[in-house]
């Protein structure tokens, strides 16, 4: 990207425009790159360094991974996160796509606009705050929907947060806080499907269901994959929901529930930062591998 001065006036103007644009682009990318290095690459490298060394900085190979894996909470945490991911990803894919399609059928009228706004509101609340909202919602003594909880057979907070209910509860909370944004994204993607394709489908006699199943969902595939990759990485790092729940329930439910909580315990309660780093490196490897599989299988980066 060199700057050349051309004698031709219009060409110069055009080039200057391009140059200015690319300079602006560079500036934006540079800012992003700095942040990425400071908050993404360096901490990751630091964690990898910790994961393979001991408290004195001596290289220990996989000893930290063995120690972490042998902790009595490790396998439980893995299974908790796995079950949660199944619930979370399934509900996300099914409901987000379904709601986005419904929303799209409503069109851009006022009802559609209002719904889009409503879907998005919870996502605008900060994560921890929206979890706190749910802690009130789920306590039958103070909940505005206590009659609903009562109808489901829950009369005390203790009954609501029984161990078997936790994956569903965390999914509900995560869906409420996180899905709205994705619905709006999917709606945008649906809007981008060329009208001639939709019209062709209509002329061919496709109903709403067939259009959705054979035209819209296949064309949303990349967006769905993108959502699943990010949701998988986010879900594997489950932390705020169980941690706040464990505080709210004075430790009855949610303590040592997820892998991220285990890393927190390792780092701060057991003073074993290296073990904590080992678990977080494992999480990184799993998330990156899952993303790689999804990208490879879906042809995510193929040109349209």
């Amino acid at each position, binding site marked *: 990207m060199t700057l050349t001065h051309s004698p031709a006036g219009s060409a110069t103007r055009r080039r200057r425009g391009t140059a200015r644009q690319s300079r602006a682009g560079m500036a934006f990318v540079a800012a992003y790159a*700095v942040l990425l290095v*400071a908050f993404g690459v*360096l*901490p990751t490298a*630091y964690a990898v*360094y*910790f994961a393979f060394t001991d*408290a*004195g*900085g001596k290289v220990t190979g996989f000893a930290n991974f063995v120690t972490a894996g042998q*902790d*009595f*909470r490790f396998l439980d945490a893995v299974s908790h996160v796995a079950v949660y991911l199944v619930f979370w990803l399934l509900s996300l894919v099914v409901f987000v796509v379904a709601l986005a399609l419904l929303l799209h059928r409503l069109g851009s009228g006022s009802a559609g606009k209002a719904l889009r706004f409503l879907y998005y509101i919870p996502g605008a609340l900060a994560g921890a705050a929206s979890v706190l909202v749910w802690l009130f919602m789920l*306590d*039958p*003594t*103070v909940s505005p929907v206590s009659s609903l909880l009562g109808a489901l057979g829950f009369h*005390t*907070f*203790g*009954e609501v947060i*029984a*161990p078997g209910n936790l994956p569903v509860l965390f999914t509900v909370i995560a869906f409420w806080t996180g899905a709205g944004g994705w619905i709006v994204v999917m709606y945008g993607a649906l809007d981008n499907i060329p009208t001639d394709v939709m019209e062709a489908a209509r002329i061919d006699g496709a109903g709403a269901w067939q259009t959705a199943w054979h035209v819209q969902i296949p064309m949303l595939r990349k967006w769905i994959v993108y959502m699943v990759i990010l949701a998988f990485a986010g879900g594997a790092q489950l932390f705020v929901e169980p941690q706040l729940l464990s*505080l709210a*329930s*004075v*430790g*009855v*439910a949610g*303590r*040592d529930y997820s892998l991220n909580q285990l890393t*927190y315990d390792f*780092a*701060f*309660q*057991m*003073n074993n*930062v290296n073990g904590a780093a080992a678990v977080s490196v494992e999480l990184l490897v799993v998330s990156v591998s899952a993303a790689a599989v999804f990208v490879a299988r879906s042809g995510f980066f193929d040109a349209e």
Partner: protein
Amino acid sequence: MTVNKPASSPKRALGKKRAASLAGCAATVLLTMTACGGGTAGTTAKDGFAQAPQKDGALTVWVDATRMDAAKLYQRQHPDVKLDIVSYDGDANGSNYLQTKVQLFNRTHKGWPDVVFSSQNNEASWAVDAGFAAPLDKGLVARSTLGQFARGANDVCTVKGTLYCLRNDLSQAVLWYNAPLLKRFGYTVPTTWEEFQALGEKVAKEHPGYLVGDAGDSFTPEIYLWASKCGANHITGPKAVSVNTTGESCTRMAKLMDALIENKSMSTSGVFSTDFGKNEADKVLLMPGPAWYGGALFKGTFKAPAKQIAAAPVPQWQGETSPSTGNVGGGTWLLSQHSTHIKAATDFLKWVTTDDAYQGAKAPGFPAYAPAAETWLKGQDASGYFAGDLSALKAASSQVWPGWGSGRFSQEAIWAATVKPGLTQGKSVVSMLPAWQDSIVKYAESNGYKVSQ
């Protein structure tokens, strides 16, 4: 890269530490421009530890909501002291907030509070290893002062013979009861656990809905099983614990609890739950519980009217020769080794634990400092809130069974996660004793304890 595990070669370890903290600084310096200095330069050995260079400036004090009054009162009485009062959860229910923060401060080499209150009494078990708690009996606090704390009160603060914290209050369990209600029902205060159980069964029949106790809190084992001399938490050495939850002393209390939970005269909600506050607070006939129930629970949370609540000794098993009771927490005050205002910090610490102005007159719990406890008892009698005197508290203060220790792992957290969910699902306490033991053993071992069962 930790501060508290000296490597074989200290110099080398320090080098590594520097290198690592340099790397850490490099990562953050881009955006925060934090000063990354070493933390050990220029210390003087005094009062049994290496003291940082002393400076002027505000004294940072961390307290929970209840102890906020103490800090504010100190500020009023000492307007010339610059005080920075920070409110935190007080590590309630073993939340480990303080420990988490200290581990972070140890990494950043700054930020430690000068004096900190914790509602937990096992803080010394980690705070000494973490290089946070300063020794108090090596010059900071006079031996004559320390000698006036109630017998055994500061045992939880003693690590390898050195004192690292001061006990705020004692939390010996007694039997709280609603005196007018008990009289109206025509019952008498039970003195044995057998009588207690019989009374619970009577209440269930004659006055269903009324309660003789609660078994739904994370500290439930400390009220009932500790008083029954259950060997669930016998700390036998700095890193050794003996755990046996299925002995006779545990099972008979568990059976008593099961019987009363079954007939609903014992609640499983937990006294601080929204459910209890809304539906059961005015149904309390009897309630075994710690000393601080009087002020914090009955007066503060339940807003029970005056002349209603009274305290009796905790029941004993029939034929028991040595009376025993349990203990729930009893906060501790720690002083930071890293403080740059040690003089001011020590003054605050001494005032807050011993001065009658707070401990004698204002404290919600039974002061650990015996002279203040005398004043406190007189004050409670004079206030006329309780129906009858609180002499049961004084008697119980020396009857806490010493076979239950304060390890690094939180017994409250273990009970909450292991036994409480089962109680909610209707399982019996007896049936969960083996699982409880299993869980204690696992937590103890993962914290580096050698466990004998």
